[in-house]
């Protein structure tokens, strides 16, 4: 699983990364977490309000920082 955090390095994006790592740890999942900071790249995902979360090249969340538990639900839904 490849997870990308979209955002220009603002506090929100760091919080999202933290929540994502927490969620991964809780689920016992291993995934690569990358940061995408290039605005053109971010925009190409269709995200216009950072931060955004991309799982395996699909945007699952944008425009807000979720709690670790809601990221956990999102990821759990992805692995089915």
């Amino acid at each position, binding site marked *: 699983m490849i997870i990308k955090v979209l955002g220009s390095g603002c506090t929100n994006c760091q919080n999202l990364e933290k929540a994502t790592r927490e969620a991964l740890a809780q689920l016992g999942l291993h995934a690569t977490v990358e940061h995408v900071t290039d605005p053109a790249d971010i925009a190409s995902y269709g995200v216009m309000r*950072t931060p955004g979360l991309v799982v395996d090249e699909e945007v699952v969340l944008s425009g*807000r920082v979720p709690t670790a538990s809601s990221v956990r639900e999102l990821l759990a839904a992805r692995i089915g």
Partner: protein
Amino acid sequence: MSLLERVPETRRGRWLVLTAAAVVGLALYELNEHLWDWVLYDGLGLDPSGRATETIHFFLYDTIKITLLLVLIIFAVTFLRSYMSVERTRAMLGGRREGVGNVMAAGLGVVTPFCSCSAVPAFIGFVAAGVPIGVTLSFLIASPMVNEIAIGMLLTLFGVKITALYVSTGVLIAIVAGWILGRMGVEKWVEPFVFETKLRGKAIDPAEGLTFDDRVAMGVEEVGTILRKIWSYLLVGIGLGAVIHGWVPTEFFTTYAGPGSTFGVLVAVGIGIPLYSNAAGIMPLVQALYERGLPMGTLLAFMMAVVALSLPEMILLRRVLKPQLLAAYVAVVATGIVAVGYLFNAVLAT
């Protein structure tokens, strides 16, 4: 840890905490002035007419008052705005012609939840979806200038008339500035990669699929996020306001920058452009300056210049706009703000 994780998980628990917070906040707001009178004058025995005491009193009183107002405003606005999203705004603007498009973009800029830290991906996203450059710029100008905090604070501190003037002229500047920039044929001054960006996949709409509780939770979360982000600006603003309140003589500004002053607005906008703060930080300063006789038009122009044009945002926008367009952007918006300042001074003086 986020603010939301500190409150109970159950629905009932959350509503209890929210209600308790509202009651405590309201009580504090009502008692605020008496509280500091009592602490400073009765408790510490300070002289109420002393300048230092006045400054301290203003600082403590305003810090509590403005923080409480902000909590309420941010919560209410985030809740309401959770029904809107940048994605929806873009869908509404896609394929619009200039003119109507500028008007819609400026109006939507006011109600769409948006942070200028996302200005670059939003700019690219709008242009890639076929929204004309000038229309996109109308949105980007209106969004920070006529924002929820500015409206809420103006409404509570200065009343409906001033707020209505601020909002309507702010939107007007965004419409006209975006339209003029669009007419200038500025496509050649946009970095080429913007036009080459292809959107892959479909955008998800953050406003969709939220429950009422989700929206309330977002409001609570946003209060924490914004206060953490702006508290330093807020304290500096209130501090400056307090010093002006205590130490600057009433006639000082009336003499040098009264309503009849020729350069007052120009100077205010010149100072305001490079300054970076936000509506919340600037409001206590504006309030203190107003008490000391600075005319409202000059102050509103100052406020618009501070929130609409800032160095950090220009640096961000430089990623997508060439220096020529950036300069034109600043020049057109600044001219609009100066014009509004003089207009306000003329209208409000009569």
